[in-house]
């Protein structure tokens, strides 16, 4: 059992939780992930580690209430326990010989982009951070991101905060202005990572993306997290979650991530699991 020692709503959809898991905190590194299971009937769900405090034995996760399991987790409160919390899993991020990096976060992906920016900033790297959200209401971690960035750009789809447009629009104008980056780190929805990677490929800027595909065990056992990278099949849980954005087959990944969407959506909308577990009708 693992205790939730702090819970904070970052917006209506996104929740911050500090979990007491000393063994995980002791080994956690940026870029790695954990798998949680709320209770006996819950799924095993992977989440990238947002932060950790080795002294306090705490691991921070920041997640969006998107599926049945994240909804279930969000219903827990400070002091409550969850059944399982496994990690750290995956290969830690590894950025070498970089002096100037653009870190891009999309939506709840900012929760993972932020600690990456912080780590780079603390290592003396010049960080330009671009954070994108749908609208003003769902902006998270703005001050935190600003603090670790040499230049910080906020973009919203509807222009209700920062500039109007996508993160790719901001990145493109920076590149056009002649900004030279050693590396772009993009973390967010798969389509965002795809378009960032397409753009940086044109400009020849190495790009790292962080995957969060469907998986069961997180140790290489199920192979559900297969991602095609440079024409080769990789398991995101052990070979990743970081990959070269110029080599990932994003379209395949988007399809794979939506595999259970119909079951999920019905489970959430009707609140009735029985219905969700029935075979697909009329297919």
């Amino acid at each position, binding site marked *: 059992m693992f205790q939730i020692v702090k819970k904070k709503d970052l917006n209506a959809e996104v929740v911050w939780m500090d979990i007491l898991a000393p063994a995980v905190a002791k080994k956690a590194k940026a870029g790695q992930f954990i798998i949680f299971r709320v209770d006996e009937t819950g799924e095993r769900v992977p989440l990238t580690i947002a932060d950790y405090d080795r002294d306090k034995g705490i691991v921070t996760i920041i997640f969006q209430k998107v599926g049945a399991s994240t909804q279930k987790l969000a219903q827990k409160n400070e002091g409550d326990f969850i059944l399982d919390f496994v990690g750290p899993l995956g290969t830690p991020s590894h950025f070498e010989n970089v002096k100037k990096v653009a870190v891009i976060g999309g939506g709840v992906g900012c929760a993972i982009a932020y600690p990456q920016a912080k780590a780079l900033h603390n290592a003396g790297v010049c960080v330009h951070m671009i954070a994108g959200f749908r609208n003003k209401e769902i902006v998270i971690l703005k001050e935190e991101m600003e603090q670790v960035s040499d230049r910080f750009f906020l973009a919203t789809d509807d222009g209700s905060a920062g500039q109007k447009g996508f993160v790719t629009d901001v990145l493109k104008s920076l590149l056009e202005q002649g900004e030279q980056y050693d590396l772009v780190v993009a973390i967010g929805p798969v389509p965002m990572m795809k378009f960032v990677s397409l753009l940086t490929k044109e400009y020849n800027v190495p790009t790292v993306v962080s995957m969060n595909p469907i998986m069961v065990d997180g140790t290489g*056992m199920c192979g559900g997290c297969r991602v095609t990278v440079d024409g080769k099949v990789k398991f995101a849980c052990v070979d990743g979650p970081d990959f070269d954005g110029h080599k990932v087959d994003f379209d395949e990944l988007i399809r794979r991530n939506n595999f*259970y969407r119909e079951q999920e959506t019905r489970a959430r909308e009707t609140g009735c699991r029985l219905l969700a577990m029935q075979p697909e009708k009329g297919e």
Partner: protein
Amino acid sequence: MPNMQMNKTPMPEQDGKVRARNFKEVALGYTADMAVEEAKRCLHCKNSPCVSGCPVNVNIPTFLAQVAEGDFEAAYQTITSTNSLPAVCGRVCPQENQCEGKCVRGIKGESVGIGRIERFVADYHMQNETETKISRPESNGHKVAVVGSGPAGLTCAGDLAKMGYDVTIYEAFHKAGGVLVYGIPEFRLPKAIVQKEIDSLTTLGVHLETDMVIGRVLSIDELFTLGYEAVFIGSGAGLPRFMNIPGENLLGVYSANEFLTRINLMKAYDANYDTPVQYAKKVAVVGGGNVAMDAARCAMRLGAEEVSIIYRRSEAEMPARLEEIHHAKEEGIIFRFLTNPKSVLGDENGKVSGIECVEMELGEPDESGRRSPIEKEGSEFVLPVDSVIMAIGTSPNPLIRSTTEGLEANRRGCLVVNEDMLTSKEGVYAGGDAVTGAATVILAMGAGKTAAASIDAYIKNKS
């Protein structure tokens, strides 16, 4: 007088059509009368070849004689003096290649149903709880860590605990049992039985730490700094193989590991659980081992209309237990022998729509002694399916060997051990699928047993 009936006493089973749609146990087990009758078929021949066919050398003639006399508890004690998981072995051992394969009754007629009787004895014991309470052995003050809670780890831990060691098992999943819980389905090995075996270990004083991925959260070297004097690695062969053919990442292609884990460990078939799984109409399972049979039979139980097993050799070469093949056929699984997949086909949404196969014929025997299959030119055909499950084998997970210095592995990724199950690293022992590659429950148990004895000798020598 021995019972000279040529055939085994039949085992009551759920009807094929009925059980193909439920997850309840297929074989219902002998009654006491059936077990006695079957035990009387043993001739008590001089050499007891059956015992040499058993990887843990269960004293088979003795326990059969005890069953024949109706002393089932004595039979249980005989079995458990060398086999710590009889309820499991009675159900999943490939007896036809082991004890029963050596039985002289098998020369003319059928061998004695040793597995069925073993199962009866274990179930009888569990139901009647006749045993005197297991007493915790006196501690000898030495700590041993066991990595993995599958058959190898459980056996090693049990044996060491009985000798007085303070044993901790580290399990990566949230539940102990390894392949017994994530791989082998409920209808073949009820999970309540596995849990009872695990409970009896904790009663012995074995500590169980779940959610611990050794190699990540703790390294093998760190285990020694925590005071463990020896480590046993029984981490299994959990890495699924794929065929590397086009279309393998389409939606609806599963590794058997993923499919079975979703169903067995994560209980996707139970509406009370959140685990999603695809409910396919037409399923192709690629492979010919027990795992392929399990996957096919699970797919059928999820409600599929048609499930095919695609196997590139002929039925004679199939590595699955005879009983599993027989049961699968009874449940309506279609066997497509001498057939090999060439690609998986998908629709415009990236979902599986079919599997392109080619017919095969058998050529000369290969290094494994089995005749190797060769493609029949121009015999390609498409089987329309909406799900494909790859059950073509697994290899050991590289996590531990890649995070432990000085731990030698062969080119197939299997840990290298000597006859005492000692690895290339002092104090580190290994056994089961992590050493052999995917094999059987009983072989893993045999390895766990040997390792426990070696660890005991090692620690005694040292102190």
